[in-house]
């Protein structure tokens, strides 16, 4: 999925203000994808959520000196999401290739279900902790 264009960047402006615009755009993308990826069979949206989490994480890493601990907590959460959704995506890639290996297909299906539950729990846990809202307020 193509990254959304960040509007209003000023190449000669203050770094923190520009960084905040980039982070806000990436955070919006993550929230929009994740909210729609909470259905078990929404594989494409789960993949898009992983990409959005990756982009948010790297942006927060690059601009880490501009922000406070809310950004660090969000970076850690994005990294966890990226990891779980990455493992889930690996199952999606592998499943069509193992159709002729029934026991492996069953193992991968079970693994995918487990990882999907982890994703939902993680997303809901970060939402209830207020990780994304805190990041947004700190920008």
């Amino acid at each position, binding site marked *: 999925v193509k990254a959304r264009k960040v509007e209003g960047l000023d190449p000669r402006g203050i770094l923190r203000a520009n960084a905040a615009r980039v982070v806000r755009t990436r955070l919006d993308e993550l929230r929009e994808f994740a909210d729609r990826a909470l259905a078990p069979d929404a594989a494409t949206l789960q993949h898009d959520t992983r990409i959005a989490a990756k982009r948010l994480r790297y942006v927060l890493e690059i601009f880490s000196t501009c922000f406070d601990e809310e950004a660090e907590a969000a970076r850690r959460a994005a990294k966890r999401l990226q990891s779980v959704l990455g493992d889930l995506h*690996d199952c999606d890639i592998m499943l069509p290739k193992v159709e002729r*290996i029934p*026991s492996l297909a069953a*193992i*991968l299906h079970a693994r995918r279900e487990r990882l999907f539950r982890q994703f939902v729990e993680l997303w809901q846990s970060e939402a209830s902790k207020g990780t994304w809202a805190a990041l947004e307020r700190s920008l």
Partner: protein
Amino acid sequence: VLKRVKALADALGARRDLDVEIELLEMLADEVADEDRAALTALLDELHAARLLANERLAPFVAEKRMKKLRERLRKLAGSAAA
């Protein structure tokens, strides 16, 4: 410069995907039923062969001359931004 970095990232990604697939299968191999072991071995052989091919495809992207040129372009770009 962005086009070159993207091309390099895509080439590395295609190569990395095969590592991930092989790693996943090897991690789950012990849990596979005995009657499926031959099929799993065949699949792993296919993936190993694909990885060798991917290595050949990746080689020109990470050739010393090309990497040196990319480093120079990036340095120049960073210099122009700082000026």
